[in-house]
């Protein structure tokens, strides 16, 4: 995510809200700031912010945008075998 970016802040809030519905032991969220960690952004080839990179085992998916519609994440997590808590 980018500092002082409304879209990035919205994405972080939307994502954190969503993840409360998942088993915290099975999901790790790392928030990186492209301004202070540009090298990592280069390695991950991040162009647009916010970009959510979801890694489940060897599988990778990228979700760009403020995550107003969280179904994209739930679908990706479901494909990786992660369902919401009962």
């Amino acid at each position, binding site marked *: 995510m980018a500092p002082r970016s409304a879209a*990035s802040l919205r994405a972080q809030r939307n994502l954190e809200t969503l993840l409360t519905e998942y088993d915290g032991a099975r999901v790790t969220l790392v928030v990186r700031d492209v301004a202070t960690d540009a090298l990592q952004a280069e390695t991950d*080839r991040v162009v647009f912010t916010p970009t959510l990179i979801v890694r489940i085992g060897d599988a990778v*998916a990228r979700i760009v945008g403020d995550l107003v519609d969280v179904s994209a994440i739930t679908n990706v997590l479901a494909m990786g075998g992660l369902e919401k808590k009962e």
Partner: protein
Amino acid sequence: MTTLPTTTRPPAVAKIPTGVPGFDSISYGGIPKGRSTLVVGRAGTGKTIFALQIASNMAKLGVKTVLVAVEETPEDLVMTGDTLGLGLSEAIQNGSLRVTDASRPMDGPMVVTGDYDISGLTHRIEAIVKQTGAQAIVLDSATALFSPRPPQELLRSLFFQLIHHFKKLDLTSVVLAEAAQDYGQLTTLGVEDYVCDVVVILRNIIDGERRRRSIEINKYRRSAHYKGEYPCTITANGLTIFPLDAKDRPDSDQERYPSGLPGLDGMIEGGLFRDSIVIVRGPTGSGKTTLAGVYARSGAERGERVAYYGFEEPKPILLRNFAALGLPTNELIASGNLVVQCRYPEAMGLEDLLVSLRMGLEEFKPSLVVLDSISSIEHSSSEKGFRQFMVGLASLLREHGRSALLTQTVMGGENPGHTAPYLSTLADTILILDYSIEKYDLSRTMRVLKMRGSAHVTHPYRLAIGQGGLQVEPQAFKPGAVEGSQARPVDRARKLENVRVLLVEDFSDAREAIKLALQRDGAQVVEAANAAEAFAVVQSPTPPDVIVCDIGLPDEDGISLVKRIRALPGSLGRIPTAALTAWGLDEDRARAADAGFDAYVIKPTDPSNLAGVIDRLRQGPKR
């Protein structure tokens, strides 16, 4: 009294040379420093090559540059540049070029949902700038970067953020963008040109049967630039542009040099001007090639370096024809003073021909250049393509400060003084060769139509072709004499009266010239531009008495045509036929004789000679 406010002239735009041959001329110095240049064009127009050339040149000039690879991987881009000899790998090694990968990762799906910005890329670039001290950036391309395409408002905003960021970092930027078409909306995204300071359009257009590349500076904020399209080509070393304006002409001190024809030098007060372009115009058979030969020999004999480009006949034929006129060239070629190159302009695009001429000028460094004829080049291209070629050629000659003699075939009967205006403007001197038919002979003339910066004789001089080439001398004024190749003889024997001649020739102006000459002898001429048309005429209710046939024809050549005619039953298979061709080697003659030709006439020839051959053939016993 009111004092008008004084206006302050804005400072001149600081520029960085691109090193792309010709571009720094049409842009008056290159791309603007610290500002954005947009390069647009359809796929295959050479945008990436152009951008890599600029990146390479900036790196060589010490302007540290970042190359953002979006459309291709960094490895592929660097390989493209290295193949063109741009030394990108070397630049990366010495730290003057940095390549960053912004291509879309293909290791998994990418989904877009909601609002976003381009801070990821801008922060990456900012970090590279801080780390390396980069001052320039090349982005290939905006179209690939914004794919899938965001909604228009967001797209506009993202592109604006990107360009604004480049400017904030004081980067000189070159951004590439895809166009959907050569003309019309500049880019497929439709937002880039508004925020960039310079817009360059590359085109690769199908013009007739050929492709024609061009470049245009569509906009250049706060700087003058050349307007309109300029021809360009892609060589093994990248894009080369041909500025049409000869602004870089070296100062000429009005030095004169002999033309090789003392009579002509007398008409123009002492000789041709150095670094000037001479166009020699006249109908087929008027002596243009002979004059070109005399000019070239005379220069080489004086010790000058002369480059002769022939487009009308193969080199052995050209040299043999010169030798037959007493203009031997072997020793001059052996001495290295004269280089003769013959080629068919159809075999290469005009841009490639210009590149080849440019390389010839740079390597051989001739002081005199001959092109015989520009009409052959004209036949092989569209009107616009030929115009661009001629203006590019003139620019090339003047840029290198070379004197040139170009020949141009005009149709018999056409006023040779009137031709495309740009050709007249390009030429410093225009000579008109012509002939009229008087009694049984030709009366040849030479006239100086134009001689920039010099007094000259305006009436025609007599021209004689014979051993030793040409001779020019004043002619006695004959009251009532009619000038020009349209002249009708008063008491001329019309030896081909009512003879039906089928003339098979693919070049329309050559056909027209021969037809007019034969008609003056009374012949009824039926024209055919190819073998199929000719065969149809032979089988028509009024077959010809004699056939005059070119051998080099499109689709089916004259040899094959005559074989087919000879296979026809009855008198049709025995119609006497003369070959009229530039190919004059013994094996060519033998091939023609085997096919069934009865006579062999080598071009160029005097109309009276051809008429004599036809007269003999139609009187002779038919097969």
